[in-house]
């Protein structure tokens, strides 16, 4: 078992003929993901790389290929529309890689997805990977190893850094999930913690947060109440100045709220082992397991 994706994942790539979409589709196919369809309006009938049929609409792709999951690589201006379309077509899991979606678009997208009982991961996220099983998104497969540690993160490359530490020290991953750096996202820490807690193949969870908002604080409350597995946590942005957006649209300290110190304290109160630096992940995990 793994979390959200597994060998049954049948993927449709929205924007498969674009620059990013085609590159990562090849990477996902090479990794072993079942990429069953692509979508680009006007290119229905083409076959991507001689392997993946392309459709004009997600509805067509689902009807013809029984896809159950979508990954989105379309430009920001049309990414909200792509999520609406994926949800409308009945997909259960929608992973939106695209960065730069207006937050007001997300205020309308999120209830739409929820009403249809679908799960959205992202936007502005690296996706997720269940090593040796399936990869949906852009997390480099070569840094991951199959194993029993769950990883959930608001970040991209910082996640790779920490996963790399895990893999090189013998801690494989059940699933690594990048939930994205935007203020409004479909799947948050709590959703992932709950899934890892329920997953028989996950022994411990690494949680990588950053400044901005209160998601980590709420996740810490959740850990205290509902997570019995060891959790190790990191917060990026201890040196970030208030009021400046640190790259991610969500990484901004507003007033006195959303600071790294506040989040690290919440982690500690909830019994989460707090890393001071990314290299601490392995020793802390060893301690707890």
């Amino acid at each position, binding site marked *: 078992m793994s979390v959200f994706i597994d060998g049954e994942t049948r993927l449709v790539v929205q924007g498969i003929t674009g620059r990013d979409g085609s590159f990562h589709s090849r990477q996902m196919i090479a990794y072993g993901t079942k990429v069953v369809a692509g979508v680009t309006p006007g290119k229905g009938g083409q076959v991507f790389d001689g392997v993946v049929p392309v459709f004009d609409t997600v509805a067509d792709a689902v009807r013809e290929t029984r896809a159950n999951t979508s990954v989105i690589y379309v430009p*920001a*201006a049309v990414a909200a529309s792509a999520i609406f379309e994926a949800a409308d077509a009945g997909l259960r899991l929608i992973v939106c890689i695209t960065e*730069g*979606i*207006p*937050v*007001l678009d*997300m*205020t*309308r997208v*999120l*209830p739409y997805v929820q009403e249809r009982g679908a799960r959205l991961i992202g936007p502005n996220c*690296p996706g997720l990977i269940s090593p040796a099983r399936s990869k949906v998104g*852009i*997390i*480099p497969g070569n*840094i991951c190893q199959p194993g029993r540690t769950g990883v959930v*993160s*608001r*970040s*991209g*490359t*910082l*996640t*790779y*850094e920490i996963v*790399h530490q895990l893999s090189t020290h013998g801690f494989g991953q059940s699933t690594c999930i990048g939930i994205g*750096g935007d*203020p*409004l996202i479909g799947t948050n820490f709590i959703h992932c913690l709950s899934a890892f807690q329920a997953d028989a193949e996950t022994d411990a969870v690494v949680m*990588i947060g*950053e*400044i901005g*908002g*209160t*998601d980590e604080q709420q996740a810490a409350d959740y850990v205290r109440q509902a997570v019995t597995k060891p959790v190790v946590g*990191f917060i*990026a*942005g*201890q*040196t*970030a*100045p208030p009021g*400046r957006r*640190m*790259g*991610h*649209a*969500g*990484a901004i300290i507003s*007033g006195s709220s959303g600071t*790294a110190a506040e989040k690290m304290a919440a982690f500690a109160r909830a019994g989460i082992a707090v890393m*001071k*630096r*990314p*290299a601490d992940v392995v020793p802390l995990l060893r301690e707890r397991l």
Partner: protein
Amino acid sequence: MNLHEYQARDILRRQGIPVPPGDVAETPEQARAIAERLGGGVVVKAQVHAGGRGKAGGVKLARNPAEAAAHAAAILGMTIKGLTVRKVLVAPAAEIASESYVGILVDRASQRPVLMVSAAGGIDIEEVAAQAPERIHRLAVDPRYGLLRHQALGLGLKLYRDVGQARAAADIMQRLYAAVYAVGASLAEINPLATTPAGAVTALDAKVVIDDNELERHPEIAALRDSGGEAPSEVAAREAGLTFIKLEGSVGCCVNGAGLAMATMDLVKFYGGEPANFLDIGGSSNPQKVVDALKIITADPGVRAILFNIFGGITRCDDVANGIVQATRQFPLRVPLVIRLTGTNEALAVQILTQAGFSALTDMDEAVQRAVAQARTA
């Protein structure tokens, strides 16, 4: 993107919100002309992206056009929190019977636009939130339905006993909500929402912040950007497609990914150094971006060492290596360079760097420690 008060007032006015007259001036003469047109006393307000304008002497009352010109002359060119004032708003010095607050921002917890109102207007709402939170009324608006009439009226009745004023305020709230979606704002505030002695409800001061992600679809709003209010290095970075924030330390940082960039800064601090900046070169790995990044970092006289921290995923390490080599051919680096690269095409990158006389590390901690040490000794 922050808008100036005069720009925010224009947006509100276009949505049909009552805003007092007034106009923007770039010279004392223009200020005098506006004051003449308005008649009576006016207020001259510095248009600058900084709080505390009043305390800094950037807001002055003038009894007549001559005084307006004199105040404008004093305020224009003044520096407030490091920013030079280039424009002033000249508006009537309104008599105010009461001051309220109305604001809308997108709330992360409810994932909805939240309308906040308070009868304690005219002062910083963060202060009200800290000292008298019960005086702020909040409503998370369901974006599928928008701000409904009865909801706005319910809040209007929290501000005004008079039902006519409550209705006027409710109408303003509904228009402000429409404005948020019309221009792509992440924050829209009216503070104060004032009543005149005659009882009219009017938006006396306004603040609008635009979601940067909306600018592409709102070119008319993007055109309002005033780069004069930003650090030149940050303007250059934005134009080069980089995310850059200037800080006060000595270790210049160049990283791929926002999370890793923050973690790198944190590690610099952990090892006793101070980061000179936040800089994310982004996911794609165009060598030119690396050149632009180095140009911006080296322009900072405070920088004593430069640290590259690259974890190659989509970013290809060889592209970054090529960028470094190109940059050092174009302009001299006056400070030591510490490079950490790992991931995609790492071996190729090391080869490129070695040929050009650079060495590369693979461990983040080691690289940060070395950069901190070099910044200290340099």
